[in-house]
């Protein structure tokens, strides 16, 4: 039976680069996939594109391509990535230029766009999922709306001979599903195989999270050589069966436990994992350790795809201002608490207009609140005061950090290491769009 090996070269935009080079050079893979788009990445990239039409793609695209293009070209490895973000065409042009500068002539690069549905969403009668509000009522604050496209346009690009496929918003597993559909000639309505291929994509999309990264817990779950963590490879067969593994000699581990954690990562109902291509069923999945760093995955299936596509909607939400200050040594906790009281009173006294405020003591109860944090009972040696608030303007947000900073000369004794920040917040909501309203576009260029 025909098998292919797919490597996962990045789990997020800022991920390590050399594990991807290791995959290309030593992984015996045919496809190298980079999943680099977080929820709001496109919304932020949209701003960059508006300022400069040649920008708006992943900030590490050039560095990644410079690192992997030569080994991929030498070994005939095709690249699939969503690093196009808000501007796949500009990302493809940049990749073409890099390929030329490396002397890699003849590389065929495809840009997949059409995920940008902002105008469609604004003009029609569509509602925000979370709030039920009409999208049109937010028109003034909307910055982006991108539909999660499926595997089809990537498959079409591969069929047309693309060596590199660069997309904008595409469902993460679809980046991995597309090479399987293309190589094995699966039907776009073979729900069982699409479900199996989607599980493979889901397991791989966070790269190191399945090879022992984000897993280690010393004494309970020990993982060797995390600084040299290897990224995962799926060995997939034509019938959809698959083995998860990694480059021999790299750090980390692939075990049934690492696979189980990743299977359930960011999953709601395991029997109904919605993607643009299939509703995948993870609820009967089983893992078997077949050898060192080799885990077989079986039991996934699928049902017909949904009639709508999820759209990720970016909008200007608010501004956030923050300040922090540290206290250490005897009495640190009491001084930290006093500092918080002073800032709380100052914000009221000076009339800072915040719609939401948080007063945290980092090292004490900042993460999970007071009820869960008192278990130890011992006073910490050091604490860090954190005050953060939501405002309607940047100027107002700056006042919050300033009030924390003034603790230097006005506050409790020996406060140090003040930091402050103020930023605008692009937040994300979602909408559902009939799938025929998002029309994928593929553009080819050659190095």
């Amino acid at each position, binding site marked *: 039976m025909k098998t292919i090996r797919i490597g996962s070269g990045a789990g997020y935009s800022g991920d390590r680069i050399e594990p991807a080079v290791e995959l290309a050079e030593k992984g015996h893979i045919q496809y190298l996939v980079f999943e680099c788009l977080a929820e709001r990445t496109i919304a932020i990239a949209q701003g960059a594109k508006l300022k400069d039409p040649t920008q708006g793609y992943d900030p590490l695209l050039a560095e990644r391509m410079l690192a992997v293009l030569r080994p991929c070209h030498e070994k005939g490895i095709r690249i699939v990535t969503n690093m196009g973000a808000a501007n796949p065409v500009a990302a493809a042009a940049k990749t073409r230029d890099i390929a030329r500068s490396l002397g890699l002539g003849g590389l065929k690069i495809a840009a997949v766009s059409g995920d940008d549905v902002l105008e469609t969403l604004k003009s029609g009668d569509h509602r925000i999922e979370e709030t039920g509000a009409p999208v049109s009522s937010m028109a003034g604050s909307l910055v982006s709306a991108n539909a999660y496209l499926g595997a089809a346009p990537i498959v079409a690009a591969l069929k047309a001979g693309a060596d590199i496929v660069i997309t904008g918003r595409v469902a993460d597993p679809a980046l991995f599903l597309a090479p399987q559909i293309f190589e094995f000639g699966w039907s776009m309505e073979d729900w069982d195989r699409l479900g199996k291929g989607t599980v493979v994509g889901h397991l791989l999309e966070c790269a190191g999270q399945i090879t022992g990264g984000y897993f280690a*817990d010393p004494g*309970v779950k020990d993982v060797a050589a995390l600084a040299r963590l290897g990224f995962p490879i799926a060995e997939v067969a034509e019938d959809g069966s698959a083995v998860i593994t990694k480059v021999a000699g790299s750090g980390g581990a692939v075990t049934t436990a690492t696979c189980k*954690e990743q299977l*359930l990562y960011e999953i*709601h109902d395991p029997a109904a994992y919605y993607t643009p291509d299939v509703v995948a069923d993870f609820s*009967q*999945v089983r893992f078997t350790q077949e050898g060192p760093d080799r885990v077989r995955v079986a039991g996934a299936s699928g049902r017909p795809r949904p009639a709508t596509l999820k759209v990720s909607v970016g909008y200007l939400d608010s501004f956030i201002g923050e300040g922090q200050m540290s206290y250490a040594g005897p009495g640190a906790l009491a001084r930290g608490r006093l500092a918080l009281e002073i800032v709380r009173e100052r914000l009221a006294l000076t009339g800072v207009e915040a719609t939401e405020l948080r007063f945290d003591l*980092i090292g004490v109860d900042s993460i999970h*609140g007071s009820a*869960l944090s008192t278990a130890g009972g011992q006073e910490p040696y050091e604490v860090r005061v954190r005050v953060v608030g939501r405002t309607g303007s940047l100027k107002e947000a700056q006042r919050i950090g300033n009030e924390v900073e003034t603790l230097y000369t006005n506050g409790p004794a020996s406060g140090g290491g003040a930091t402050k920040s103020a930023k605008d917040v692009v937040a994300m909501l979602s909408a559902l769009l009939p799938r025929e309203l998002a029309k994928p576009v593929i553009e080819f260029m050659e190095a």
Partner: protein
Amino acid sequence: MKLRDIAHSRTGDKGDISNISVIAFDEADYPLIEAHVTADRVKELFHEVVHGEVVRYTIPSVGALNFVMRQALGGGVTRSLALDAHGKCLASALLDLEIPDIARPIQAA
């Protein structure tokens, strides 16, 4: 004993929804986990953090539970004021749950 002695866990996020897996190290312990790690207990444990409903899904084929918690991420990851906006640390807190000690037959090597 603590849940951490027999299970591991990972948190995921989508908007204002957090999900936490609870996975038995040894699948033989799954029934014990299923019996004692209920949606009500998880909701009570996180009462200061989670303001919406908690739904539990069971995945016996991998010896795991999945808790889906609404209104759990300060209004949504992208606008939350929380230090851990993604709620990534929630998994570790859940593993601190107390589970009754039950003698288990020692498995043959």
